[in-house]
């Protein structure tokens, strides 16, 4: 299971990085979203998968899954949501100001 999820993480990173490198801002934002999905899965995998019971303490359980990565991921999900929301509004504002589609330009594109 861990190996399979790690492979999935690899695929997600690949897609995320490719989107990050594109010109259209919406693609870049999608790229960050997918990259954070990948990292969340990676964190969870590092703690081991399906190794015990849900980390809700009760007397019958012999072993619990690692709760620490879960706490970290919970924080990360919320932060990445904030970032995505901010970036989207940024793209919107760029479009409003420039009148052009929100794209990333360099010297060569001018």
């Amino acid at each position, binding site marked *: *299971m*861990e*190996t*399979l*999820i*790690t*492979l999935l*993480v*690899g*695929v*997600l*990173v*690949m*897609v995320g990085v*490719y*989107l*990050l*490198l*594109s*010109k*259209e801002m*919406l693609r870049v934002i*999608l790229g960050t979203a*997918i990259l954070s999905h990948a990292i*969340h899965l*990676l964190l*969870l*995998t590092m*703690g*081991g*998968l*399906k190794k015990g*019971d*849900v*980390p*809700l*303490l009760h007397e019958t359980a012999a072993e*619990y*899954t*690692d*709760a*620490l990565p879960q706490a970290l*991921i*919970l*924080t990360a*999900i*919320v*932060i990445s*949501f*904030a970032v*995505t*929301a901010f970036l989207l*509004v940024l793209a*919107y*504002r760029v479009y409003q100001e420039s009148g052009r*589609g929100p794209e*990333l330009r*360099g*010297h*060569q594109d001018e």
Partner: protein
Amino acid sequence: MITVLLAIFIPFIAACLVPFVHKFLTGRKIGWFVIIVPLLLFILLLRLVPSLSHGATYTYSLPWIPSADVYFLTYLDGLSMIFALLITGIGSLVVFYSIFYLSEREAIGRFYTYLLLFMGAMLGVVLSDNLIVLYVFWELTSISSFLLIAFWFHRKQSRYGAKKSMLITVTGGIFMLAGFLMLYTMTGTFSLRELIGMRDIIAADSLFIPAMLLVLLGAFTKSAQFPFHIWLPDAMEAPTPVSAYLHSATMVKAGIYLVARFTPVFAGHAVWFYIVSCVGLLTMLWGSVNAVKQTDLKALLAFSTVSQLGMIMSLLGVGSLAFASSESSHVALFTAATFAALFHLVNHSTFKGSLFMVVGILDHQLGTRNIRRLGGLATIMPITFTIALIGSFSMAGLPPFNGFLSKELFFEAMLSLKNANLLTMDSLALLFPIVAWVGSVFTFIYCMVIVFQSFLGKVPEPFPGQRPAHEAPIQMLVAPIVLGSLVLLIFFFPNILGTYILGPAMLAVYPHLGNMEGLVPEIHVWHGWKAPVFMTLGVIIAGTLLYRYLRYWKGVYRLGVLQWTLDRFYNGTLLRMERVATRVTRGYMTGSVRDYVAYIMLIFIAFIGIGLAGFQQFVFDFSNDAPIEMNEGVIVFVMMCSSVAVLFARSRITAIILNGVLGYSIAILFVVFRAPDLALTQIIVETVTTVLFLLCFYFLPEWRAEHRAVSMRWRNGLIAAASGVIVTVVALLVQGHSLYPTISIYYETASRIAGGLNVVNTILGDFRAFDTMLEVLVLFIAGLGVFSLVKLRRKKGVDRPEEK
């Protein structure tokens, strides 16, 4: 001995105080506050002279970075004493002179701050024992020199000269640091005194020659030795007191100090002798030949300083032979050369300092220092003329001035080389005195140029000064008069200087000889009809003839060899370096964020990739894997497919829906992986995110297909693929290794410690509550950002500053 430590720190403290004191002592009155510092230190140091002349030394140690073997160890011996006395003595005179030289309109406070900064740094160079401390002060002198040369920074020439001196001396300093580090690897100590004790260990090491060359490079750049002398003439853009102080009396002698200091470490080796003496003699010749053609008096003095520094350097080279000789008579001959070097060092500071001040007076009174526009000033400015006469004749090596004595010793030292049978150099032994003699002839010529072309002859028409010329105010004449009297006094009483000041310094250069006896030769004004006397007579005759017919052979200087080829080389190199740097920077700073992201990813790939390549144990341990069930496999498969499909989505709605698929699938995976809290949060967040994305339909135009070159797609594709592969490989490797036991068990005490049964919740709300609080803060800031981006608009009529 705390005086030695104070000597370094008092100037720095005073430098910090100058801006504040300047508020009360306005205008040039601040100079009276500044002059206390060198004067006080001079007196304090002078009190130590008698005990030093009995062989005493003073140390004071202050731990600085003990773990890195850096102690702030100050060390005062005879050699340091000469320099410290010059720094504080000439410093006092220069400050006094500058009080009347500078105009009230100048930034006087800034000037004195820099000057005190330099004073402290220079005292630090000569008084520190630790090489790293020495290096720091060494570079600090370069920096303060830079600031002082660029004092009139509105002039282009000042900025050019400042940059040039900084580049050359600091580059040399960095090489010197490399030499110091090599010495450290050889011996394991940064202490100068300990290094001298480990002479044999250093000489046997294979790094001996490289370390020696690097240290010499530092000394040569600082002391303006050929071919690094080109910065000194351009440094003359500094105010004249600075030229008199830094660029003739003290800073440029730091290289001499370094060579003298390292003589007991490196001397005795043929390479040391050849490099130091040949470079010195070449510099002497080149400087004096170039000085003759100058028309700006300060440029002439700059080249003459170059030449004189070369002369001192060559003497130190000859003096190093004492380490290679065993016969006591020869040893005495060669130590006399070092004695001559130190003697001339003092003499040069006196006569050159007075000459610079004279030129400053001319500049101040007449507004020009161009020789062609000067003349006949002897009757108008008799005192200035007298001082100029004393200084120039002393420099030319004429009696009854101190320069005569050291020039005689110089000739004697050069002639003594025929005894140096230890180094195979029969023909060279003849060449050395000849070069020295020719250099001295040219020295004689430019000295005559100073005296006769600016002070004698006809008063030029039209007269250069705006107002009728008259003698300088007495306050400006005090400092040059003091120096001029020293020139005479040293001639009549040279042995007092020799015994009390130079003797201890000789002992510092030749510590292995044990005592001062025999190291201090008796200086005689007349020592019979011997070779040096004839050489001096020859210099006078040849020099007079050549000066008389100067205009007939001056055309020689138009020959290509003597042009400013070195300067042209420096300028060309700088220009080319700037061009290359611009091209390189333009090449990768495209201004496109995409490219920068690509660089970041490439560096990530390169570093982690190289790290992986060097990693020996590729153990992929799959034994701990949990089993895969059918439904999980399907979810993962769906996720892979939908993520890849995002790349090929034609319209953004497809991409957004596919992203939603990913998010919700992850929520299901969280359920499978026993993380109910995550699943809940993920579902909520994913829903809101999708809604946000869908809002784009309303506000943003449809995205355009990426029209990119195929090569660009390949580049991006490769970067993406490589990142994915590296992340996968690293993640798999990590799972095969468990270096530390898990710490998560601790959190299972949650119910007892935090009073909660949901471990994830207790971590967020209790164990790591601060984290959560800051996370809320991040959300809050993002919310503010969203709000301001949507709501805040620029009012009409308000300028956009970024578009100006």
